[in-house]
């Protein structure tokens, strides 16, 4: 271990490359975070993700307990297993955070999203859109002679699939809520 024998230009790697990103799989995890519904709490959570360079695929939030003023945030995020662990630990450090649960590792769970699609057109395309909506169990919640608004709930994949089908049939506007999730059974 001679320290004096220094190769010139020997430092090939960055100390900031924690892990070779290609060496590890990127996983998607669904986290639920219960927080005090106080001013700025969402900014704290979002600021954590942007400040530390984590990904947000989807984020939803609403108050779930009026009496105790708690809200539930559902976050779908991606990262290496190490980054996912960091995200959970960092969320846990935020003072108004009550709990952080990783549904992806904790057992079977359900994910649902609600989407509204505006599809405009006439003739065959209009008929086809309606027929597909029926197959996908999307509801018509508004209609004119030239348009429908479909409402649908389901997994993000199902909503993606429906959106793909609607695109050539005159999809002009989409609104999605992002994912809400809950564990199955009594857990």
């Amino acid at each position, binding site marked *: 271990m001679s320290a*004096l024998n*220094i190769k010139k*230009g*020997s*430092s090939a*790697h960055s100390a900031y*490359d924690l892990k070779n990103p290609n060496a590890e799989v990127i996983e998607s995890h669904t986290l639920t975070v219960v927080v005090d519904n106080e001013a*700025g709490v969402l900014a704290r959570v979002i600021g954590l993700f942007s400040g530390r360079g984590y990904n947000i695929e989807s984020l939803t939030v609403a108050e779930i307990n009026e009496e105790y003023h708690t809200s539930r945030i559902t976050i779908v995020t991606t990262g290496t297993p*190490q980054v996912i662990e960091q995200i959970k630990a960092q969320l846990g*450090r935020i003072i108004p955070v009550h709990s952080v649960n990783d549904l992806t590792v904790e057992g079977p769970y359900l994910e649902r999203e609600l989407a509204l699609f505006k599809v405009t057109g006439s003739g065959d395309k209009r008929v086809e859109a309606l027929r597909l909506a029926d197959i996908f169990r999307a509801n018509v919640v508004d209609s004119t002679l030239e348009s429908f608004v479909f409402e649908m709930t389901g997994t993000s994949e199902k909503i993606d699939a429906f959106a793909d089908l609607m695109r050539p049939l005159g999809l002009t506007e989409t609104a999605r809520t992002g994912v809400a999730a809950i564990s199955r059974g009594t857990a």
Partner: protein
Amino acid sequence: MTRQMTGAKMILQALKDQGVDVIFGYPGGAVLPIYDEIFQQNDIRHILVRHEQAAIHAAEGYARSTGKPGVALVTSGPGATNAVTGLTDALMDSIPIVVLSGQVPTFMIGNDAFQEADTVGITRPCTKHNWLVKETAKLSEVIHQAFHVATSGRPGPVLIDVPKDVQFAEGPYTPMQKAKSTRYEPQIKGDIGAITALVEMMEKAERPIFYTGGGVINSGPAASQLLRELADASGIPVTSTLMGLGAYPASGKNWLGMLGMHGLYEANLAMHGCDLMINIGARFDDRITGRVEDFSPNSRKAHIDIDPSSINKVIAVDLPIVGDVGHILEDMLKIWKSRGRKTNKAGLKKWWTQIAEWKAVKCLSYEQVGKVIKPQYALERLQALTAKHDRYITTEVGQHQMWAAQYLAFDEPNRLMTSGGLGTMGYGHPASLGVQLAHPDALVINVSGEGSWLMNMQEMGTAVQYRLPAKQFILNNERLGMVRQWQELLHGERYSNTWQEALPDFVKLADAFGAKGIRVEDPADLDDAIMEMINHDGPVIFDCLVEKHENCFPMIPSGAPHNEMLMGNAETQGVIGNSGAVLV
């Protein structure tokens, strides 16, 4: 019966209840009611600094040297934005401080009112938590919660933003005991199964090492005592980060010195070659690990930390233990003793022989020749001449900071106050004033560079006004030395803007402030000059002219592993490759 009082009075009452004896602050329109209350009481002293950044650093110095939270008070807008550097500094170094800021009245928030800034928005990422209090009735409770958050778990800075109308309005005062606790209760006790597993590893290890950090000091003096007992009884060598210096004494028999980028040869090679690394309250900072892929490749690693997010953040460890360092060390000792105080004696003997070889390299040796003072020599003399004092050291940031860590000996915790995580030039001078306030009779010295010192030199006024005799020991190389060193090693000796022309005459400057100035250039005069500084009953600016192009060694270049260390006599040109150069 609840007492009614104005928000401003409530602030003073709550601070008093929390045991606060001093506030560092600077007034302005949005905090006038609070200043009016300060005027009308005598329990809490207010120290008028010359810049809000200094108020925060002074509070940090106070906190770090006492273990108690430091308190600062600033006005809205520019007062609050000036506090941002200090808050970030305290967050990075886990220093408990409570900052109160004034805000425009609630009905004007959002209107771009005069001196309005979104203070909670700006300080959200640089505080552990912050609050905007919109009702007087909630103010005292929030203050009590703020002290709890700042001081428990991993300590850190908190900020309470108080609109002016909230300060004027009346409301019921919530005493400390009645304040609703936050749910914030970090885990204190470590998992006994994990601690037992660690003791087992410790008993068998051939080449163990304790790698200690600021967490030992933050845990309180008992943790330092326990560390000493465990290390001395087991014979395991100890190294420490910059933030942890003093937890294990520099005069202790198991001391290897500081590790890291400018750490000692023996400490870094022991980290590289160990088979069991026990991280106690440190965080695998990049200044410590160097290239992470090659960081201590053959060791099993245990990590004791109160902050779960520190675990596996940078270095994946084999055995994480979450909890308070003091509590965990206590359990470790108990379990280790009850199992018969076993160690791998043969292994340890070989290990110490190896360490002795590394120590024999004498990595800190330098030569004091000629008529120019070497900075290392100045610090060695400072150490020799102050060793008998109960001495508190603060530093600025740069080469002088690393030399102070290398050449000064810290035998007790809470004696070194330095900006480790953020590396804030301008920290040391105000911090030294905060330390001096907390320890009026102690010898307090800020080891400084001339560049850093100018960043908060206005605080000389504070020192003189409050008769704070802290000494400003400036190693004046007329260079932004640390940056210049990197330019020499990385940028072909093109010294771009690392040389300040027109430096002030520091002796005249001291005189202008009403303080004492001492200049020394000849090594032969150094001891007398240092004694003159120590014996002067009042603030001193000590201008020590030193070798201008001295480099700080050993050095692990950015992006290199621990066993690729540059030593003082090595050929250093071009040793840092391009990928190392992108690092800081």
